[in-house]
């Protein structure tokens, strides 16, 4: 719990320092998108400090490139470790 409070306090400080630079643009769209992104990232950080397991994007990329990656791996191992 103390970690979550720590993250919240830290994000409040960052918000306090950072928000004036967004406010300067005088665009409601900018402010709105900024709030959504900020809340999203704070949510992710809270999940991270609570040690919730995240899906790993690297595994997705590996799945996509498996048809070329696997034969290439075998080729490299055959040529380099002969």
């Amino acid at each position: 719990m103390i970690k979550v409070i720590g993250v919240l306090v830290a994000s409040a400080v960052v918000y306090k320092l950072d928000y004036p630079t967004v406010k300067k643009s005088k665009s409601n769209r900018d402010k709105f998108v900024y709030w959504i992104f900020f809340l999203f990232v704070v949510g992710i950080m809270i999940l991270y400090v609570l040690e919730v397991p995240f899906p790993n994007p690297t595994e997705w990329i590996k799945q996509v490139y498996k048809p070329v990656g696997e034969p290439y791996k075998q080729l490299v191992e055959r040529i380099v470790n002969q």
Partner: protein
Amino acid sequence: MLHQEKISVRQFTILVFMYTLGTSVIYLPSLVASYGKENGWISVLGSSLIGFGVVFILNKIAQLDEKKHLFELLEFIFGKWIGRIISVLILMFVIYLLATNLRQIGDFITTQVMVQTPIYVIMIIFILVSLFAVKLGLEVIGRTSEIFFPYALFSLILLIVLVAPQADFSNIQPLFRENIAGAFLAVFPASEVPYFQLFVFLAIFPSVNKPDKAKKGFYIGVALGSFILFIITFMALMVLGPDFTARNQYPTYILGKKISIAEFIERIEILVAIAWFFSIFFKLTINFYALSLGVSYLLKLKSVQTLTTPIAFFVVILGIILFPNIIYFMDFSQFYWPFFAITFGLFIPLLMLLIGMIKKRKQGNGSQTPS
């Protein structure tokens, strides 16, 4: 308009040079030595030729419309919806790249320099500096590059000069006898790191004040960067030997440890680390700038800087969760990352060039026929 700031051709050239050195200055010797053994330096030459090819394609794309940046060009070439989908894919690649680079510097410092420090502290410090630079804008990044360029170049040249007396030609003999196939195979993974990522520069190309001279600057920056990479790989192979170079993860850093002047001035390897800090700072910053430009353009925001702070903290978390350990990272970066990079670094630019040229020719005919 998202890009009103202007940088000079010289600043652009220095940024390209720094980006080319980027992370590869410290990883490349190990990679090519593990594939080609004593002929590893051939792969660096081969990959720089590929690099020139990539720059040629990128310059041609920039010529299609010199006032449009990467994401505007994508929308112009592929139409509204397909262009946006490709833009999102490219942004995912760039954020992945940013997180990986951040993780690499974190891994380097926590294994070699400050062993007891937690990795996220290092990552937060580095991303905060980049965040500050992106917040201040492209002009400031350009001027910063002019200030730091001499230090980075001087410390690398100093490294090469000071380590030269220990070079031993027998380490790279026999020439062209064994491991030739490995040396040619290494061209593919060796060209992924700086050259297939250069398309990011299309995002800042319209900000250069003289577009036609910037094309020449692009070539000069890549040539100078490739030359330094080549010399450093050559020196690592000659001083450390192929086996030792292949077994170390950071051979350039070990090369710095070999410096010894009259057995009096020793252990000045942090020189290498300083040069690397500068080059990776510019790599992070340019990727970060391109990323925030793309996000702001797609979401139709007023300013490039709006979303930089949330993105910065997101990237730190991403950098930690992407790779559970270093073995996983090495496996991924050797066998999957080259394909991932070539998709965005070569195939999409080629497609852009082809469709863009067809489209431009059609438009040219269309305007001629009514008159």
